[in-house]
């Protein structure tokens, strides 16, 4: 790796994550990026130069370089808001269907999806079904979600001990999610910058701490298209310091912000454009006999 390569990488990491890589740590960068570069069949300098224009690789590189143990119930208050505000509202609104659907968009290793699953196991009334869709651009991460296996060190992060023993069983040095939780979560490969084909709508969408990996144009595009997949009375949750404020007006106008406890949720303003070309009968047409 050339000094210039290291410098431009250090600048990228600092900009995106505030983490600082100082000279002397080149070996660490090489150790962590070499597998990614090799997977693409390029050398490390070439790989680094691609990161400016390839958001998928940029995401992978940043994940590999930053201390990457995601917490359970990360930031705590969004999960509190889910239990105390969002879930009761959805239970009231979906009383006829008794089904709740949730999308963890950019699920990474799955702590977010399974954290929600734990809360649903605790608070969803009998007779209700829950579906959690976990998507990510990394198939390796999706496999991790499917396996539902986490290391001891990962299990220490933000997991109440009572939930640890209730929802996980030990497998060697790892801990594995119990089947009834795993059954709530299905995975799908998805790049947020690509079209959302056949996704349907969700009562709650979690899009937390992932928009930072995209440039402004893509960020706006994601938030624009996302409004078609959140139920009219549903919720979009962004990361703690993320907001639609400052977005182009056509995007900002699609969302209104609502304070739920210490958390700001985004709710759709306009319904998604109708896709069908069905034209209702004119009002002068008699209905019935």
């Amino acid at each position: 790796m050339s000094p210039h390569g290291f410098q431009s990488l250090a600048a990228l990491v600092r900009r995106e994550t505030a983490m600082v890589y100082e000279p002397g740590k080149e070996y660490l960068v090489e150790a962590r990026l070499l597998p990614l570069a090799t997977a693409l069949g390029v050398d490390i300098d070439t790989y680094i130069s691609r990161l400016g224009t390839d958001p998928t690789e940029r995401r992978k590189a940043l994940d590999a370089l930053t201390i990457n143990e995601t917490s359970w119930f990360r930031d705590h208050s969004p999960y509190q808001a889910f239990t105390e505000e969002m879930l009761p509202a959805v239970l009231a609104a979906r009383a006829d269907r008794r089904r709740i659907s949730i999308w963890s968009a950019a699920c990474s290793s799955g702590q977010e999806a399974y954290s929600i699953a734990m809360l649903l196991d605790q608070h969803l009334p009998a007779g209700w079904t829950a579906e959690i869709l976990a998507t990510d651009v990394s198939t390796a991460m999706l496999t991790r979600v499917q396996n539902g296996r986490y290391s001891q060190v990962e299990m220490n992060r933000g997991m109440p001990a009572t939930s640890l023993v209730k929802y996980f069983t030990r497998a060697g040095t790892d801990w594995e999610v119990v089947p009834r939780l795993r059954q709530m979560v299905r995975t799908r490969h998805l790049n947020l910058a690509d079209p959302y084909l056949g996704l349907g709508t969700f009562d709650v969408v979690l899009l937390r701490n992932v928009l930072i990996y995209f440039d402004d144009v893509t960020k706006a595009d994601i938030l624009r298209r996302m409004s078609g997949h959140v139920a009219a009375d549903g919720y979009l949750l962004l990361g703690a310091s993320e907001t639609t404020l400052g977005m182009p007006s056509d995007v900002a106008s699609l969302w209104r912000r609502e304070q739920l406890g210490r958390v700001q949720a985004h709710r759709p303003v306009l319904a998604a454009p109708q896709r069908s070309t069905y034209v209702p009968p004119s009002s002068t047409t008699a209905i019935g006999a």
Partner: protein
Amino acid sequence: MTVRAMIIDDSRAMRSILRRILTGLEFETSEAGHGQEALDQLTAGPVPDLCLVDWNMPVMDGYTFITQVRANPAWRNVTLMMVTTESEQSQIVRALAAGAHEYVIKPFTPDAIVEKLEILGLTSKGIPA
């Protein structure tokens, strides 16, 4: 209001690691090398808000210490967090049943301790608005 924490572990190195994490959070810390020493300090007062308790210690182990604390109504507001290598499911269940409020498996990172303290409401972030 400053949180007072007692670190109970027979390993000087582990006490040092935990002390540095807790003083970084501006906790006041005290230390004991085993359960009996800790009980003696509790009796002498002042009573800490939090005890970090290792399991395997000479004289009196952490599990026994926890049962003793929970048996004394005067100490019912002391938060008890085990910090131990005992990682079998049955051991964790036993500790929680005996009255431990939280459980950290060694090895841990400083972040892990902080996040457990947040769950317990013992850092400024965890205090309800």
